[in-house]
């Protein structure tokens, strides 16, 4: 079946930074996610994002599969990351077992 795209995604993953900050303590938009469908690894900020309503839908730049969905209802954030096999979140380097003491960016 012909699946050509006739419209481009309105946003990129940068726009998910605010809603994701309600759930995660670190900035997930700089994390690398691996697509369950095609195996492409992408920085979350570079996902092709549709929305914002009824919800944000972040798709793989490689295959357009859904990687992230976020819906904000009046009293909850609904988050689906099932399209990702993994999420690599860089944290400040520290000696193993010893918490790093600095490196946090605004």
């Amino acid at each position, binding site marked *: *079946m*012909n*699946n*050509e*795209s*006739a*419209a*481009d*995604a*309105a946003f990129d993953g940068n726009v998910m930074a605010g809603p994701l900050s309600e759930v995660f303590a670190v900035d997930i938009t700089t994390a690398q996610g691996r697509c369950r469908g095609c195996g492409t690894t992408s920085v979350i900020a570079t996902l092709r994002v*549709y*929305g914002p*309503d*009824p*919800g944000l*839908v972040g*798709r793989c730049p490689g295959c*357009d599969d*859904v990687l992230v*969905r*976020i*819906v904000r*209802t*009046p009293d*909850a954030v*609904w988050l*689906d990351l099932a399209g990702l096999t993994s999420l690599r979140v860089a944290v400040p380097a520290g000696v193993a077992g010893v918490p790093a003491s600095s490196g946090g960016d605004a």
Partner: protein
Amino acid sequence: MTVTRGFHGRRRDSDARLPPGQHLTPDFPVLSAGPTPLVPRDDWELIVATEDGTRHGWTWAELMALPSEDVTVDIHCVTSWSKLDTDWRGVSLDTVLADVDTAADFAMVHSHGGYTTNLPLEDLLDGRAWIAYEYDGDELAPEHGGPARLLVPHLYLWKSAKWVREIELMLDDAPGFWEQLGYHDYGDPWREQRYQGD
């Protein structure tokens, strides 16, 4: 609650034909959760799959051969816009489902591009739902769901799946694309059933 002085937001109108929390829009906003699928009519097919695996299919030509209806209805989007007196042409689901034997109570509607939405089967019957292929006298444009979309105007518009390709009949309810993420399983605009628990 921090109120911003003078901010009212988009005007919410009061009109007896407007469900609570809705406002009127003169245009036809396009909300998309993914790339717009371009489905050639030559390849188009509608499938109805019953709970025992039986599949009924209609090609585009077969759909066109079914009796069609012109309907004028109000549509209500969960993102709070409503549009009154929209004109559509399509085939009633009573016609499509007339010869389908099923004990199902629910339907999962599948679209090209992967979208899904769930509804009680009875809401697809009794002249309340159509496979629509014309809007305002013209072929239904791809961004509005063409070649054909579901039209179930008595529920919020996310139930009226664009680019419909299959109606899967189910004994038990299961959540669709937005219903998995907090949207209401039924979605009655008059009861403001936007989110689960509403």
